């Protein structure tokens, strides 16, 4: 959960990594795009795609191994969990929670955070001080600790997970967008426009917004993976998504007690998380290069 630590190098204080470090393979955006597309399809298709009702218990058919393991069958390709629920169906069903949480969290934290960042960066002064103090306070509290307490205050569930993620991540956008605005403001054409008496709204609309939008898009793509991991951690501790809703983190939490009985129950949902996060990170990296060829050349 080292959210902040990962970000820290991008802060104004540290030198920006200039040469992008990427997988030199043309297949990467295709692979990661495909996985993300699959996530969306599963999330929309939901129950219609699943071989079994993902919530249906079959107590007599519990702990069935996946099809390739000894004793497995095609009836349950990825096996069943401790209550005899079909793991494949639950992973497909869990995609919806992952996507819904990601979308809401990204839209809200991106919106609130970017707005705060723009205000702080563009207007400076008291607004800047106030917002950045808030960011500092917020960042000093370990994100997971804050999330856990908040989740205990609110009724655990999907809405709470979204709120908690927004509270944690808005600082991400606020800091980066503020930095971006500060550097854009120093560009000659923006300064010139100001001198020429062009209104704030126009400057913002014409010069700042397009640049910020790219940054936000990249951040949002990268955030998908982080949000999914965050949701999984919260659900794993029992303060996130609650059954009968299905989430990958919750599946891991449920399977933990049966580590010695059923390795597949703990492995499969984690693989789903990993694939989606990996794709989100790779796709975000690729997008950054595409949207900002300037950096790629450096």
């Amino acid at each position, binding site marked *: *959960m*080292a*959210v*902040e*630590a*990962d970000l*820290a*190098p991008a802060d*104004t*204080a*540290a*030198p920006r*990594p*200039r*040469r992008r*470090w*990427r*997988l*030199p393979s043309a297949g990467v955006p295709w692979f990661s795009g495909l996985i993300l597309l699959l996530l969306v399809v599963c999330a929309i298709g939901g129950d219609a795609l699943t071989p079994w009702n993902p919530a249906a218990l079959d107590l007599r058919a519990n702990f069935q191994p996946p099809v390739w393991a000894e004793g497995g069958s095609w009836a349950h390709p990825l096996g069943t969990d401790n209550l005899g629920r079909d793991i494949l169906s639950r992973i497909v069903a869990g995609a919806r929670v992952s996507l819904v949480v990601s979308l809401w969290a990204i839209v809200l934290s991106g919106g609130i955070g970017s707005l705060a960042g723009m205000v702080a960066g563009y207007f400076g002064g008291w607004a800047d001080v106030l917002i950045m*103090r*808030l960011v*500092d*306070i*917020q*960042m*000093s*509290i*370990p*994100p*997971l*600790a*804050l999330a*856990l*307490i*908040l989740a*205990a*205050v609110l009724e655990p569930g999907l809405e709470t997970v979204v709120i908690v993620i927004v509270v944690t991540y808005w600082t991400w956008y606020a800091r980066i967008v503020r930095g971006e605005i500060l550097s854009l403001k120093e560009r000659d054409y923006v300064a010139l426009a100001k001198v020429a008496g062009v209104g704030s709204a126009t400057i913002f609309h014409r010069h700042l917004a397009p640049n910020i939008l790219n940054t936000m898009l990249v951040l949002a793509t990268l955030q998908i*993976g982080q949000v999914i*991991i965050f949701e*999984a*951690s919260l659900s*794993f*501790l029992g303060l996130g998504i609650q059954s009968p809703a299905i989430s990958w*983190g919750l599946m*891991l939490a449920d399977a*933990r007690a049966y*580590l*010695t009985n059923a*390795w597949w129950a*703990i*492995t499969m949902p*984690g693989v789903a*998380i*990993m*694939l989606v*996060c*990996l794709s989100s*990170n*790779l796709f975000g990296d690729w997008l950054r290069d595409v949207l900002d060829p300037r950096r790629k050349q450096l």
Partner: protein
Amino acid sequence: MLGYFARRLLQGFMSIVGASIVIFTITRLTGDPVVLMLPPEAPPDVIDALRIKLGLDLPLWRQYLIFAGDALQGDFGRSYRWEMPALDLVLDRLPATILLSAVALAFSMAVAIPFGVLSAVNRGGWVDRFGKVFAMAGQAMPNFWVGLLLILIFAIHLDWLPAYGAGTPAHVVMPAIALGWYPVAAQTRIVRSAMLDVLDSDYIRMGRSVGTPEFSLVWKYALRNAAIPLITMLGVYFAAMLGGSFVVEVVFAWPGLGRTVVEALFARDFPVVQAGVLFAAAMFVVANLLVDLSYGIVDPRIRHGR
């Protein structure tokens, strides 16, 4: 210079005060600890008596002022559950969390530095590619899942390492990997980019032209400079790990701060939650402060930039 220091110190202090207000307030919103402490059939007058004894009948702002006043004198109240000072409970658990975070940080650097250097030297080579995949994988997996997989493979199937708990150096291996893998990607990136800068610099080119062996150029002269940005970030990584070790501690039954706070939260043991979270927050603020101050010394331009 002094003015900058004073300003940063004041900002840090304000952050901690702000954090304490936030933590105090939301902790108290999590529910009533009193009914959890009493037998189910306790009549209302017994419940009220206990509430008054714990000071929970006062308005929130007065409760906070009492808490803040005591905290400034090092008194974080008594644990509701354990009838001992909350700070003692937290300090008891802190060494274990520091140990775990330190070893995790050492692991991540032990991976990130060679990968960062080699991938800068052989850009596009197989080390570069493998390093990238390894680092990306770490970023794509929840640390508790990494922990569970490690347990499954190395404790249950291979029986090489103890699955849970603390006690011997072997116990720390798996939790440290689970916790330390995540930041590998960011750290490798820092080292790699710094290495590229340094390798391009005049003084390495000069060294090359006078015939200094490539190996010592890279591993001795270049790395010494390239490591500076990573080392200045160490404090921040360390503090982030202290705060991020919650789930890993739960998975590995590690007797640390995170697990204590999670348990206290479920028991509505407010003083312990407050002391634990505030402690982690203070460590984070102090670490950041040290980083900023060190930059302030290294690069005077920063002082004017703010």
